[in-house]
């Protein structure tokens, strides 16, 4: 099985430790992972903001970079949903506009193979106990795109429940959007912050030391609010917890 890592542009830039955690975790589970250096971005920011034409070269690049892999694993439910659900639409634009008549076929060969980390662990590798140890109190935020677009369901919480020493606490109204929403966070900053503030209140009320999720984009927003409040609650990607062995946490 040839496995590639799609790091996503913002994890590449802001959270390289998440990619490093995935590499450690998968090697511990006996699977090597490639990092195709030709990758850049899935194009979600442009697509969701209305710059759909600008997505076409990004989708072309993505499809070329990951062609030939059996599985492409990514630490983002949001980017995985962009690839699986909307890359075919971008390809249609390219085909209809005459920009790239073959793009739909190339996208169809790659995009269904892109899996969010917990889908890969539970569905492909068939593991829920990844041998992690993380002796902390943790709350889990099910991000909107991983929940509603990908349908990852309880995979993340099953993985977390199997982590040695981890206490998973209930997050009230967990399914409510945190208010990040990509460019929504700056275009409608006041509404975004109002939504995020309610999320932060729920996190603080849960008694968790760590808030985790399958998307660092949402965690960047919630973490930014926590930091501004001076809260000691940390945000960590799921991969970092699943990679932890106790010695490094």
């Amino acid at each position, binding site marked *: 099985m040839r496995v590639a890592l799609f790091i996503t542009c913002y994890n*590449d830039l802001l959270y390289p430790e998440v990619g490093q955690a995935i590499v450690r975790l998968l090697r511990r589970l006996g699977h090597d992972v490639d990092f195709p*250096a030709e990758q850049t971005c899935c194009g979600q920011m442009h697509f969701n903001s209305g*710059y759909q034409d600008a997505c076409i*070269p990004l989708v072309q690049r993505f499809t070329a970079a990951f062609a030939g892999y059996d599985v492409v694993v990514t630490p983002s439910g949001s980017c995985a949903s962009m690839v699986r659900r909307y890359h075919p639409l971008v390809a249609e634009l390219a085909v209809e506009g005459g920009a790239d008549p073959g793009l739909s076929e190339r996208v169809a060969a790659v995009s269904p193979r892109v899996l969010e980390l917990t889908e890969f662990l539970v569905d492909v590798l068939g593991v829920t106990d990844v041998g992690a140890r993380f002796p902390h109190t943790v709350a889990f935020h099910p991000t909107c795109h991983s929940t509603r677009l990908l349908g990852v369901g309880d995979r993340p919480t099953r993985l977390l429940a199997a982590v040695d020493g981890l206490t998973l606490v209930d997050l009230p109204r967990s399914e409510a959007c945190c208010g990040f929403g990509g460019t929504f*966070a700056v275009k409608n900053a006041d509404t975004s912050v109002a939504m995020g503030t309610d999320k932060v209140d729920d996190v603080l009320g849960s008694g968790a030391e760590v808030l985790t999720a399958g998307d660092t984009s949402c965690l960047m927003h919630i973490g*930014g609010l926590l930091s501004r409040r001076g809260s000691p609650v940390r945000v960590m990607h799921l991969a970092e917890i699943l990679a932890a062995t106790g010695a490094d946490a």
Partner: protein
Amino acid sequence: MTGAAEPARSPLRTRPEPSFAGTPPFPEAARDALANKQLRTNLGRATTTIRTKRAAVVAERADWEALRLAGAAIKDEVLRDLPALLEQLEAAVTAAGGTVHWARDAAEANAIVASITHDAGATEVVKVKSMATQEIELNEALRLEGIDVWETDLAEMIVQLGHDLPSHILVPAIHRNRSEIRDIFIDEMGRVGRPAPAGLTNEPAELAEAARLHLREKFLRARVAVSGANFAVAETGTVVVVESEGNGRMCLTLPEVLITVMGIEKLVPTWRDLEVFLQLLPRSATAERMNPYTSMWTGVTAGDGPAAFHLILLDNGRTDVLSDTVGRQALRCIRCSACLNVCPVYERTGGQAYGSVYPGPIGAILTPQLRGIAKHPVDKQTASLPYASSLCGACFDVCPVRIDIPEVLVHLRGQVVRQSEASHRLPSPEGMGMGAAAWTLRTPRRLGLAERAAGVAGRLFARRGMLRRIPGPGPVGGWFRSRDLKAPARESFRAWWRRTDGGRGGDR
């Protein structure tokens, strides 16, 4: 109409009806709403209650997903065969003794209502709750024609008495709590009819009784009623109004003349199709298994109900919506409001911030389309609506006719961007930023260089890995008013992978 004798002016008629015209773009309107603590409390409480109840009654139905698919399929059939079905409806209504009128836009529809009312010799109408008549601002048009309009739906009456604007499709006074409603009744009822009873409290039963007494006088006096329609059956000519209070039933049965204003997409092909929608709508709208009042009528019946029935078929932008292959799914909407009740943006800003009688997620896709976004550039307020969403997708999950609202929002954002690009010689700051980002992301080499530069900048300005602001002006300034930002890493993942051979080089 101007030749008609001027009737005595009632207090309602002496000032213009409130209007959404002049609402600022969504971010600005939202800011004002967010600052209103009472509004947020009222909305949070109301939407949480209805959301929870809806989830419970929907969970009772094992075939809910099948019903949603059926609802979407029937509506898609209607949109595909609309011209033929409308003519079938017209023939059936006419054969049953009704009169059908066609209105291209709001002005035509309003003129037809006014003309029928004048011809009936009436100077007032009672109204059944109706979104179509709100959309065409019928009340203001009739006021200018010297006709009093009395809203009889409890919540619409609260909005009208309070000289207010609606904030929800189904519960237009959702932004008001009981004490505010009591105050409105005490202050306003006496000016336009029977006053509120002395010593009125904010107990729901007392408020309902005050409304009942106030409205009864109007029901018994009115000779003309105006309604909308939830559905119209093409094969039989039957028009359907679904409601909870029975006030609609009073309007539909007591007056001599009934005028129904109906959007052309409200059709269903056959009687049997109602089976699907009469299950989907009440559970989605009011979280009821079945709504208390379902009124159905076919033309006129001698000696029973109104002697004259006029059906006005309203386009008002709908055929423009129909011409957009992605956007047209918005015309499946049955006005249940489930998307409003689950929307995290609506819950915090309320409906008035959307500047339209159609607020919330459905409003964000319907309003720009009805205002012609597919055909011509729209104003800034309209252009801001497709961005009034975090794209969380909760709306699509609950929509009983499976309108993929996030998909349409993104599609409309594309139209906004293309219009902006076409109408300006120079790209907007956002357009330049997006262009620069797309250029950078086009090759890994450019991205790698940008990451190195960002890493250096991050090291200069970050404290404990977080930025409190970004130096200089920029479109992302709004981020930092209440949030810090994770600083770019000293070394990107890409650079780490290359330096360490994917972590195999020893130095992790």
